[in-house]
């Protein structure tokens, strides 16, 4: 099928405002959804789901959230790990105190709590920008991690200091805890990512998204149009932290099973930031591509030598991984600041003109 816009005249603004105005894009998305819902869960084995695909979905959700804040609203944050931790610990507390509340609802409640915390730490963004704001969010990162480590109430005074996902069912199906199958956990994570992506896409193509981008691109001009900087930034912090909070909750309850605060340390913040830089700042699709890339490359690097029958010490592949990431991030920042999403776009534009070179 040719990738063409020709002949697809948009007869109304409604058609033009659609999420994917071009029919080939819609077909592509439909295909991705069919594969994600109908093929992957039945084809992939337990190992792949647990070690690769579930964490990818969860990190993609966090990356979408961070991209709303950093890519769209232009507020650099290094507190992603902390906001994820808030979601995880909130879920743990709520579900151990009120075991009867549907765990999916608890995930959303925890997202709201993370949103509140995110907004509090977003207040300095009214006064400070860029690097200095990043430092302020870094304070959130260290403070929250310290708090959850120090105050026993948060982990129910468990002597090991960990939070453990208790078994939880939804409509009789085990979704969290040791007995939940990878398949079920995959589905739950996938639904969260799908809904989260649609909502993010809706937000960025409406008034809210335009206000965020206006603040990002020219805050003074935005203010003079009547966009209120504090409200707009706090909304970005709130919604972004909601996504991160839910992702944090999912990562303990659908993936890790148990966790300490180290699971949400500064490395996680950087990892999610790298996802959106490589994937593309200001692109929802890019967040997902970036998350896929960063979760898949390590797997590839650990498995490739074995496949090629080359003896390869694991710590060396770990170093190589870091070198490749570092290099790619520098490369993207210099050569293609709009990331993989932009490469995808360019590819589509080429395809649209094919077979003519221009």
């Amino acid at each position, binding site marked *: 099928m040719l990738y063409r816009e020709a002949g697809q005249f948009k007869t109304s603004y409604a058609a033009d*405002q659609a999420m994917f105005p071009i029919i080939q894009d819609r077909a592509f998305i439909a295909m991705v959804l069919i594969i994600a819902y109908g093929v992957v869960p039945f084809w992939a084995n337990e190992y792949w789901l647990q070690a690769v695909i579930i964490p990818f979905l969860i990190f993609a959700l966090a990356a979408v959230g961070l991209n709303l804040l950093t890519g769209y609203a232009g507020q650099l944050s290094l507190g992603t790990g902390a906001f994820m931790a808030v979601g995880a610990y909130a879920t743990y507390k709520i579900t151990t105190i009120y075991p009867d509340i549907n765990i999916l609802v608890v995930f959303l409640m925890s997202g709201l709590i993370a949103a509140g915390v995110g907004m509090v730490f977003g207040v300095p963004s009214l006064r400070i920008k860029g690097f200095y704001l990043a430092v302020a969010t870094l304070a959130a990162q260290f403070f929250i991690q310290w708090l959850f480590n120090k105050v026993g109430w948060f982990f129910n005074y468990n002597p090991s200091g960990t939070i453990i996902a208790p078994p939880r069912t939804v409509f009789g199906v085990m979704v969290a805890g040791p007995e939940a199958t990878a398949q079920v956990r995959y589905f739950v994570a996938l639904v969260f990512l799908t809904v989260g992506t649609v909502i993010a896409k809706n937000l960025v193509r409406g008034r809210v998204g*335009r206000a965020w981008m*206006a603040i*990002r691109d*020219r805050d003074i001009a*935005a203010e*003079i*149009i*009547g966009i209120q900087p504090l409200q707009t930034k706090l909304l970005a912090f709130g*919604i972004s932290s909601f996504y991160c909070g839910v992702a944090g909750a999912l990562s303990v309850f659908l993936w890790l099973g148990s966790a300490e605060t180290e699971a949400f340390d500064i490395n996680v913040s950087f990892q999610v930031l790298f996802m959106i830089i490589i994937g593309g700042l200001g692109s929802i699709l890019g967040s997902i591509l970036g998350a896929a890339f960063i979760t898949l490359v390590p797997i590839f690097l650990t498995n490739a030598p074995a496949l090629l029958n080359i003896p390869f010490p694991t710590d060396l592949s770990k170093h190589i991984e870091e070198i490749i990431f570092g290099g790619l991030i520098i490369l993207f920042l210099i050569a293609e600041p709009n990331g993989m999403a932009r490469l995808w776009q360019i590819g589509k534009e080429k395809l649209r003109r094919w077979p003519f070179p221009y």
Partner: protein
Amino acid sequence: MSPRNKIGDVLLAVDGVSISFGGVRALDKVSFDVRAHEILAIIGPNGAGKSSMLNCINGFYHPQEGSITFKGQRRRQMQTHEAALQGIARTFQNIALFKGMSTLDNIMTGRNLKMKRNFLWQALYFGPALREELEHRAVVENVIDFLEIESIRKTPVGRLPYGLQKRVELGRALAAEPDLLLLDEPMAGMNYEEKEDMVRFILDVNDEFGTTIVLIEHDMSVVMDISDRVVVLDYGRKIAEGTPDQVRVNQDVIDAYLGVGH
């Protein structure tokens, strides 16, 4: 030229406004009125305080003395948000567009204040939220037609040539359907044809929508052509005010432009 019998009551009164930056007195007890539906030009040599005046009117600068009365409400200082709500829109001397956004999205931001659905509706992009978006899109499409920029609707503004960027910026201001439009050197850096287009747009806006316009312009032939009245600033002080013909022959104005006697 626009009809001369349209002028209404005082819409904006600037009264004894002063502002200093360190030692620089950018505005020194400046007073003037702007009447509804008129086109008022502010002229003066570089650094005279023209841009500072616009910045005070829309609340970006806060004058240390004086008051500003808009639509009968007297204020010590305007606030940006308040000014936008009250119907003041502007363009900037150095284009201040949202570079990463398309022409369409830039102009849509001009409608932001008029969009009422909260973010929860927006998240659904459905029902009332979608209807609202389409309603405002229709208004913005009118602005796009009016400014003849249909072909660059989806282009990121960062890729547009300078003249077109100025036009998009005007579009963003117009989308807010302002009562008072402040234009800071809307024709600076344009070639002859672009200037002609811009003059036509300004006159048409004034004519068709009755929008009151305060503009800063260096090109005297343009000023003389389109403005109903002219205010002349020099070193932060108002040195003359009147019709273009009165101002043209004013000795203080001639001296200021020739750099005589300070």
